[in-house]
């Protein structure tokens, strides 16, 4: 029988790179990404599962990395905001955020990008309502969401 242990060696793919790492069972995924791997693009916002700033993709689906233990991600494929742009070239969604001024302070932006990227993957041409439902779990205290929604819709129109 698999006896309970206080730490575990996990094997995860992070932005396409296979990583093995020993983590304490109590470590949240967001801290593993930020503190162990140095991927500080994923932000800690509320730390209570409400704000969505820590959103990453786990096996392609957006999840809040502050509501997941790193050991729960063992065997999974993870994508963080650092994994979006390829060779320094922004994705169409990131470009649309830039053009539509879809951020002010930028704190929520990594989570917004991850939620919106997941939406565009399953629904390439979302309506405003689709976007609003998709980013419901992401809180922005600056913009009032208008420019964020516009940017995601525009990225869809562009065929992102």
């Amino acid at each position: 029988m698999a006896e309970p242990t206080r730490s575990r060696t996990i094997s995860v793919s992070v932005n396409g790179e296979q990583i093995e790492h020993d983590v304490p069972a109590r470590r949240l995924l967001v801290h593993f990404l930020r503190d162990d791997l140095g991927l500080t693009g994923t932000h800690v916002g509320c730390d209570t599962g409400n704000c969505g700033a820590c959103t990453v993709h786990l096996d392609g689906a957006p999840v809040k990395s502050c509501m997941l233990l790193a050991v729960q991600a063992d065997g999974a494929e993870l994508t963080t905001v650092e994994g979006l742009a390829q060779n320094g070239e922004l994705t169409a969604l990131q470009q649309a955020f830039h053009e539509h001024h879809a951020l002010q302070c930028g704190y929520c932006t990594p989570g917004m990008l991850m939620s919106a990227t997941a939406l565009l993957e399953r629904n390439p041409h979302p309506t405003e309502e689709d976007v609003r439902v998709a980013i419901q779990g992401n809180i922005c205290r600056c913009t009032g969401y208008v420019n964020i929604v516009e940017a995601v819709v525009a990225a869809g129109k562009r065929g992102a």
Partner: protein
Amino acid sequence: MLLREVDYARPGTLEEAVSLLAAHDGARALAGGQTLVNVMKARAAAPDVLVDLADLEELRAIGFADGALEIGAMVTYTQLVASSEVEVARPILGEVAATIGDVQVRNRGTVGGNVCVADPTNHLPPLLVALGATFTIRGEGGERTVSADEFFVGVYMTAVGEGELLTKISVPPSSGAGDGFAGLTIGKHGTYIANAAATVTEDGAVRIALGCVDAVPVRATALEEKLAGGDLSEGAVRAAAEGLGATLDPPGDVHGSADFRRHLAEVSAVRAVLQAASRRKGA
């Protein structure tokens, strides 16, 4: 946030999971973690051992057995929303699941977690009571099934005992019945202040369960009897439900006084029954 130290196991079989839960004092089953990880952060729960159910594929299945819809305890809300089996058998389950939390929470949160947490404001407990679901609980001594009316025992308490595990939920075939769900939330898809679920069979039998008004879902049996086989027009249902609120003893809090919850329970029950009645076969 730094959690209290905890031991972690990821069993490969159901037998192993149940043995681990039975063998360790302070062991808790970890499903999607959308509640448990948060209450661990807040130190509101401090399990010594987490038994992660992630690898138990049999708990992730949705299927049919003897006509009943069987939903594994580890089925996520997202799975429920996308399931063609749910769509065919009891579409209300997918409709309600689509309004729980947000996209990220629905991707991780599970049906088993929702009912085993047994928070009085959770969506699925009143719905599963109205649908007459049965719950399969596995322990080292074997399996037992418990009806929805007996499953919810108190605030955060269910019939699942120490060393036991909820494995699946069976929902009877609709057989032409229509289902409804209504209530008032804090924000569009937020926590319920009060809600009600209802089922109306083809021959007019009615089941109604009220949420958020007591520790566990409350069956509105007197109203069920008044409506059974009778007129289910809006006027008739409204008239029959009058006074339902006065029979309840809900809590009051910052989101609504006890009196407001009594009012909401009555309104929600009417809306849920009307929706259910409009969806039954032949309506």
